[in-house]
């Protein structure tokens, strides 16, 4: 398998558990372009986790195909397939009897890397996920906080530079503040690494924040809509999707764009007295400011505080 990001294709992928009525995943077809994050989201019973585990064959397909860079997953040796895919789960599943170094080095050891190369890779990854390469490598998982453990889980999944990452509610068990920070760091990492990622969550806001594309699955494992966050929020295909993304979907859509994305009227002398906000703020924050300040327009400023332009309420609401 390539180490460059790989394209992932679900082609009529179906899973039916024996002895159970209906499918868990029902003729799922979608393509995740190389280097993009696809978020699987939906109510419980929607088969998101099942769909994810079909990819690394923790759950065998009943029918249909899944292809990684054009090659069917069934054609790979199963251990080779799994070693070439990064896998992160909600409870992290770090090995409690191994140090952080031992945990992160698991797949490289299985692949027969020499010790020097593993040690260097562990240092590199600890730095990448914001842990201390010297102090933390000898610690055991029980000595870390939940957020730190999740970072180690991410580093462990990245260890052998996989082309594809599977992440099953990776930030689900973490408190909201740390979760938000981990999401930001994950997106920053993804900006550098450009992996193909399948990311399962039940949290719509997380899906909108993290996903390049979102696949909404409904009960019975049927795909309701597969689109960019923007299009899902602005054009939900049916009532199920509209309900699922929430009544505040218009507001959520605003959070996807920043003031810098707008065509701004030049800031004239009348900018004085207007509330001001930096250009990288979201339209949602800008609207909140206008409401709070009972103002009709605000001054958009650059990173250095100099005025960039003026945005009116009408501009924000497009």
């Amino acid at each position, binding site marked *: 398998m390539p180490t460059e990001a790989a394209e992932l294709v679900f082609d009529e992928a179906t899973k039916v558990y024996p002895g159970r009525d209906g499918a868990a995943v029902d003729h799922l077809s979608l393509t995740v372009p190389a280097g993009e994050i696809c978020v699987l989201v939906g109510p419980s019973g929607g088969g998101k986790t099942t769909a994810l585990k079909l990819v*690394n064959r*923790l759950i065998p397909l009943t029918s249909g195909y899944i292809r990684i860079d054009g090659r069917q997953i069934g054609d790979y040796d*199963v*251990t*080779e*397939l*799994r*070693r*070439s*895919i990064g*896998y992160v*789960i*909600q*409870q*992290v*599943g*770090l*090995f*409690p*009897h*191994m140090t952080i170094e031992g945990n992160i080095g*698991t*797949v490289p050891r*299985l692949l027969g890397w020499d010790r020097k190369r593993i040690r260097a890779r562990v240092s590199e990854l600890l730095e990448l996920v914001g842990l201390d390469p010297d102090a933390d490598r000898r610690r*055991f998982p*029980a*000595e870390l906080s939940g957020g730190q453990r999740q970072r180690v*889980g991410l580093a*462990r999944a990245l260890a052998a530079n996989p082309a594809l990452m*599977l992440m099953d509610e990776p930030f689900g068990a973490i408190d909201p503040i740390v979760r938000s920070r981990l999401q930001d760091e994950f997106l920053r990492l993804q900006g550098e690494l450009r992996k193909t990622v399948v990311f399962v969550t039940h949290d719509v806001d997380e899906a909108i924040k993290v996903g390049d594309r979102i696949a909404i699955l409904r009960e019975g494992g049927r795909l309701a809509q597969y689109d960019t966050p923007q299009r899902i929020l602005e054009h939900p295909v049916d009532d199920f999707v509209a309900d699922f993304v929430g009544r505040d979907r218009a507001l959520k859509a605003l959070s996807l764009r920043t003031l810098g994305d707008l065509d701004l009227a030049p800031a004239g002398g009348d900018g004085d007295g207007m509330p001001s906000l930096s250009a990288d703020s979201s339209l949602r924050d800008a609207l909140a400011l206008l409401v709070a300040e009972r103002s009709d327009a605000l001054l958009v400023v650059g990173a250095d505080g100099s005025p960039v332009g003026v945005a009116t309420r009408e501009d924000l609401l497009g």
Partner: protein
Amino acid sequence: MTGIRLAGGGPVIPNFGHGNACLVDNHWFCTSWARNHWGDILQPALVQHIELTLVAVGIGFGISFVLALCGFRYRLVDAPLASCTDFLYMIPSIAAFELLVPVTGLTVTTIEIPLVAYTLFILYRNIVVGLNGVSTEVLESARGMGLTRLQIFLRVELPLAAPAILAGLRIATVSTISIATVGAFLIHDGLGAPIFDALDQPDIFRTELLAAGGLTILLALTADALLALVQRAVTPWSRLR
């Protein structure tokens, strides 16, 4: 038994030695006797006792491990196997020794068989519990990362079961050291031998009883402490939680 008093002087009864005042009056502990008979009675008995224990726990561990693997791999046989080890443990030791005499004669084997049987009860359970105690998320991530079934067993399940297995070994060793003394009722071997000799004396020879009994306790404490050290060294992570 009662009422017999030893005249001062001559060596009348084995293990009793030449009478000094301490021995003649059968005081609680006569250091001189213990020192004089360390080489010919106490030390050989101690060495025999260690051998009895090592052989019993070693064979018991081997059998338990194989049985536990079956019970762990095939859940259906776990309950029957556990019941068998329960049943063996219920047989009174002295009865087990007596029952075996017609089969294995008055040999050390007669002592070893029940000793091995008793360790199964403790070891089987601890090994199975330890192996089953590995959390599902750890197993799932191991599988998802591409470890084979054998690699998961050797690198994940077995090391994580080590604290439970070593705890079982500690209990089994200490209880074997204790039960092994009873075997000397039939076969003159181990620290039980001087204990029974002392009990056979008129008025009970207190020094020999206390010396052999004390050595048994000391041996048990030492074995327990050694295994505790091994446990700490092998599983440094287990004290963190």
